[in-house]
C-alpha cells in the first residue's frame, strides 16, 4: 500500500524566497503525527501544498499516490488555520454546507458531538466565543470519514480545557487506517497523543521520529528536544 502522504524533493518558493527546500517525507497510515516547528518554518505551506491550495515550485507531493486534486480532496479533511466559514452562518447552515460538499460527512456524528457541547443548531458563528468556534470547526472536520486529516494549529488560541476537548475529539474520531497530521508549536499539550513527530525548520525537515524513540533513546520529552533543536 502506498504512503498516505509522500513528498519528493518538494520545494516551494514565494517570490523567489524559499519556504520549503526539497523536502523528502513519507507518512504511513494509522498514525497521529505532529508537524512541529517555530513560526515561519513552513508548516502551513506544507499543509496547503497537500491540499492543492498551492502548487510546488519543484518536486512533488502525493496523497495516497495521487497529486492533490478533486479526487484527493474527497479523502482529505482539512482544518485551516483561519476559518473559511462566514460569520452569518448558523450551525445548521454549516452542517448543510458540509453535507453538500462532502459525501463522507457524517451529519449524525457532528450533531451528536454538538449536542454534547450544548451547541444549538440555531446558534450563529458570529456570537460564539473563540474556543467554541474552534470546537465547532474541528467537529465538522472530524465528522468526515477521511483517510487523511490535516489540522493546522487546531489548539492555538484556546484555553487548556478546550485543548483537552479538541485532542480527545481527535483521538476518538479518526479511524484506524486514517492518519492525522497536526501542526502546532504547543508541544507539551499534544505530545502524549502523538505517535510520531516531524521537526521542520526553515523549510527543511530537521527530524522525523516516533515519540517513543525520542523518549527511549534520548531520555527526554519531545518538548525538551524541540527546545534544544530550536534554541534561539
Amino acid at each position, binding site marked *: 500500500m502506498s504512503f498516505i502522504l509522500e513528498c519528493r524533493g518538494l520545494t516551494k518558493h514565494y517570490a523567489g524566497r524559499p519556504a520549503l527546500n526539497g523536502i523528502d517525507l513519507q507518512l504511513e497510515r494509522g498514525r497521529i503525527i505532529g508537524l512541529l516547528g517555530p513560526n515561519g518554518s513552513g508548516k502551513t505551506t506544507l499543509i496547503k501544498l497537500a491540499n492543492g491550495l498551492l502548487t510546488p515550485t519543484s518536486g512533488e507531493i502525493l496523497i495516497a499516490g495521487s497529486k492533490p486534486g478533486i479526487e484527493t480532496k474527497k479523502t482529505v479533511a482539512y482544518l485551516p488555520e483561519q476559518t473559511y466559514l462566514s460569520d452569518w452562518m448558523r450551525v445548521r447552515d454549516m452542517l448543510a454546507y458540509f453535507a453538500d460538499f462532502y459525501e463522507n460527512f457524517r451529519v449524525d456524528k457532528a450533531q451528536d458531538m454538538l449536542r454534547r457541547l450544548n451547541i444549538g443548531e440555531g446558534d450563529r458563528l458570529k456570537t460564539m466565543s473563540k474556543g467554541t468556534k474552534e470546537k465547532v470547526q474541528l467537529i465538522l472536520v472530524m465528522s468526515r470519514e477521511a483517510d487523511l486529516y490535516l489540522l493546522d494549529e487546531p489548539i492555538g488560541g484556546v484555553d487548556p480545557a478546550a485543548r483537552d476537548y479538541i485532542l480527545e475529539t481527535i*483521538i476518538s474520531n479518526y479511524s484506524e487506517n486514517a492518519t492525522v497530521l497536526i501542526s502546532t508549536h504547543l508541544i507539551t499539550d499534544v505530545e*502524549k497523543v502523538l505517535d510520531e513527530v516531524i521537526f521542520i525548520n526553515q523549510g527543511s525537515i530537521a527530524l522525523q521520529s516516533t515519540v*517513543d524513540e525520542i*523518549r527511549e533513546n534520548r531520555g527526554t520529552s519531545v*518538548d525538551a528536544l524541540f527546545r534544544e533543536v530550536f534554541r534561539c
Partner: protein
Amino acid sequence: MLSWTFTGNRPIYAQIVEQIQLKILSGEYQPGQKVASIRDLAAEAGVNPNTMQKAMGELEAADLVFTQRTSGRFITEDTEKIAKIRRHYAEQSVLDFIKQMQGLGYGTDEMITLVSAIIKEENK
C-alpha cells in the same frame, strides 16, 4: 480513581503499563474485571490509541491482562501473579528508600531503629 499523569522523559506506553499495574494492585481494577476498549481507555488517559494498544500488548505478554476472542479484555484472575507484582513494587519502594537514607548518611541499624520508632509512633 487514580488519574493518569505522565512525566516527560520516559515512553508513555511504559508509564501506562506501570499505572495499570498500580490500578490492579490498588483494587481499582479487580481480578477478572473487564477492561474498557482501547479507544475508550486512550480517550480517558488522553493518549494515542496506538500507545494504549502497545501498553496492553505488554500487559498481555506479562499475563496481567488476557483477551477473550469475542468478549474483550480482562484483568488476570491469577491472584498469585498479582501478589508477586505487589511484592516487586514493595521491594522497589524499599530499595529507593534505602538509597535515599544512605544519601543522608544513615547506616542499616540506624535505619531500622528509625523505621520501627516511626511505625510505633504512627500506631499509637
